[in-house]
């Protein structure tokens, strides 16, 4: 009976994995998969993150302009009409991509694709909407990020590690004044056919292609924002901050396409337990004090990735103890035993596979591939871990230390340790 159930699970997984052929629909890449969900979701992924912006904060303002008034309907009309259909609209910004997502009941795709595409083709970008709705939200989001020590540390780490491009801040600075003209200019430079990928779940490829072809016909076909290739710099900075845990971020950057070795390293080091209310089995978990926490952070981008350890604690001493242990664990990671390596690969593989089960994770892992025109399948995300060898892993780990690490301390900078005090 067990065997029968296992084989059923295997065949079910085969159905799930038959993902998404990428079709070039009049210049726009469209990928869709239908697993028989009762709701559909469509994401328009635009290469319009903060990396490509020409003025600081423009990408953030553009994100918050999503679903405001267009030539077809007003902001209020968009909200009320999608409420009547029972759908959810959302926009999210990363350093590379702006994702406009609509989730809705099956059969309503005509309306929701039209809502998003009318923003891409005919947004009005009125000055009063910028002042009345967009700027306050931008300011609130920036303030929320600034009051979060972990967020500040990672922002500062990006600026140190990559300087321009990927290093430019994700959110607009609170005092920055973004003008409506610069937003319009940025929007017209990024909303072009070659710059957009459409990902659908719970919707058939033909239906989505047909809708996208019809609704995005008026977009300019060529042109995309220029971005210089990323190089890694590294460095050290200390940011004074009050209220909130003492925070230290130790980061290492690599250039080139993200590799699965780093994900394995993150899985190996992560002290997070697999069972709630227990201690993780990694070597690091035993060494950190109970009032401190260590998280592994892996941020992959199209031509670089930032891997790091985020260490937080109530006092600077906690952070110092945990940080020293974390750096020691990282240095020893290159020479782990075969058993531990297998465990780390399995953990990383599970994390990747389970993230791509959810819609947001699916878009995050497959979106860049679809934009690049490569074939996108969940299977390729998971199977990339099969080829990770122990030697490649240890060479990837040791090469991290060859360049200067990125070190950020946020909190009480008088007592927080310096990079060399942690053994870097």
């Amino acid at each position, binding site marked *: 009976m067990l065997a029968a159930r296992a084989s059923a699970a295997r065949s079910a997984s085969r159905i799930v994995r038959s993902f998404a052929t990428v079709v070039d629909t009049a210049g726009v890449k469209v990928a869709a998969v239908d697993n028989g969900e009762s709701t559909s979701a469509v994401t328009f992924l635009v290469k319009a993150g903060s990396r490509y912006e020409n003025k600081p904060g423009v990408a953030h303002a553009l994100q918050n302009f999503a679903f405001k008034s267009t030539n077809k309907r*007003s902001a*209020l009309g968009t909200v009320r009409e999608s409420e009547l259909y029972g759908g959810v609209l959302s926009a999210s910004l990363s350093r590379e991509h702006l994702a406009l997502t609509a989730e809705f009941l099956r059969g309503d795709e005509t309306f929701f694709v039209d809502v998003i595409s009318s923003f891409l083709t005919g947004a009005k970008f009125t000055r*009063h909407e910028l002042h009345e709705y967009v700027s306050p939200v931008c300011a609130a989001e920036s303030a929320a990020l600034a009051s979060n020590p972990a967020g500040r540390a990672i922002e500062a780490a990006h600026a140190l590690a990559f300087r321009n491009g990927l290093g430019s801040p994700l959110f607009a600075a609170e005092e920055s004044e973004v003008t409506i003209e610069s937003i319009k200019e940025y929007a017209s430079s990024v909303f072009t056919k070659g710059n957009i990928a459409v990902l659908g779940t719970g919707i058939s490829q033909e239906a989505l292609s047909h809708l996208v072809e019809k609704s995005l016909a008026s977009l300019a076909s060529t042109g995309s924002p220029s971005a210089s290739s990323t190089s890694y710099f590294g460095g050290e900075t200390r940011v004074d901050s009050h209220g909130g845990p003492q925070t230290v971020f130790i980061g290492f950057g690599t250039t080139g396409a993200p590799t699965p070795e780093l994900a394995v390293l993150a899985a190996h080091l992560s002290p997070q337990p697999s069972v709630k209310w227990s201690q993780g089995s990694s070597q690091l978990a035993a060494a950190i004090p109970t009032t401190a926490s260590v998280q592994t952070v892996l941020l992959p981008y199209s031509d670089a990735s930032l891997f790091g350890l985020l260490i937080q604690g109530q006092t600077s001493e906690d952070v110092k103890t945990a940080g020293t242990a974390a750096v020691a664990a990282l240095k020893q990671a290159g020479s782990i035993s075969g058993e531990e390596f297998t465990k780390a690969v399995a953990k990383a593989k599970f994390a990747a596979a389970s993230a791509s089960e959810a819609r947001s994770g699916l878009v995050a892992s497959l979106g860049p591939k679809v934009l690049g025109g490569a074939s996108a399948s969940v299977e390729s995300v998971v199977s990339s871990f099969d080829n990770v060898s122990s030697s490649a892993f240890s060479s990837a780990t040791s090469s991290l230390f060859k360049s200067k690490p990125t070190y950020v301390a946020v909190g009480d900078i008088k007592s927080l340790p310096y990079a060399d005090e942690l053994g870097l």
Partner: protein
Amino acid sequence: MFGPLGISLAPQVRASKTLTRWIKPFANWYVNLSGYRKMGLRYDDLLVEERDDVQRALGRLTERENYDRTFRFKRASQASVLHANLPKEQWIKPEEDIRYLRPHVEEVVKEDNERKVWDAISVERRK
């Protein structure tokens, strides 16, 4: 109903050449008689601003427009204190008397009306 945003026959008058020719002199005479241009004000400065929609429209003026509006008010109140019109070279000329606020008020009214429509909409199940 009354006031600058009330019912107006001006579009109908402007559409007809004959009517325009007959009425224009009276209109000009009336504007000059009302004397706001001699105080250095524009017609849209006279809009009743103690209303929510006009307040919202005022918020949509550019910084420059807002500054100029405040300047005209200060100059006019000084003229009022002195019980005298401004010197003739400072009077607002007819071509300067543009409706800078009205488009914004109309936009706000349109938005308010749209909100009323959505609030009172009746929905039918799709067949």
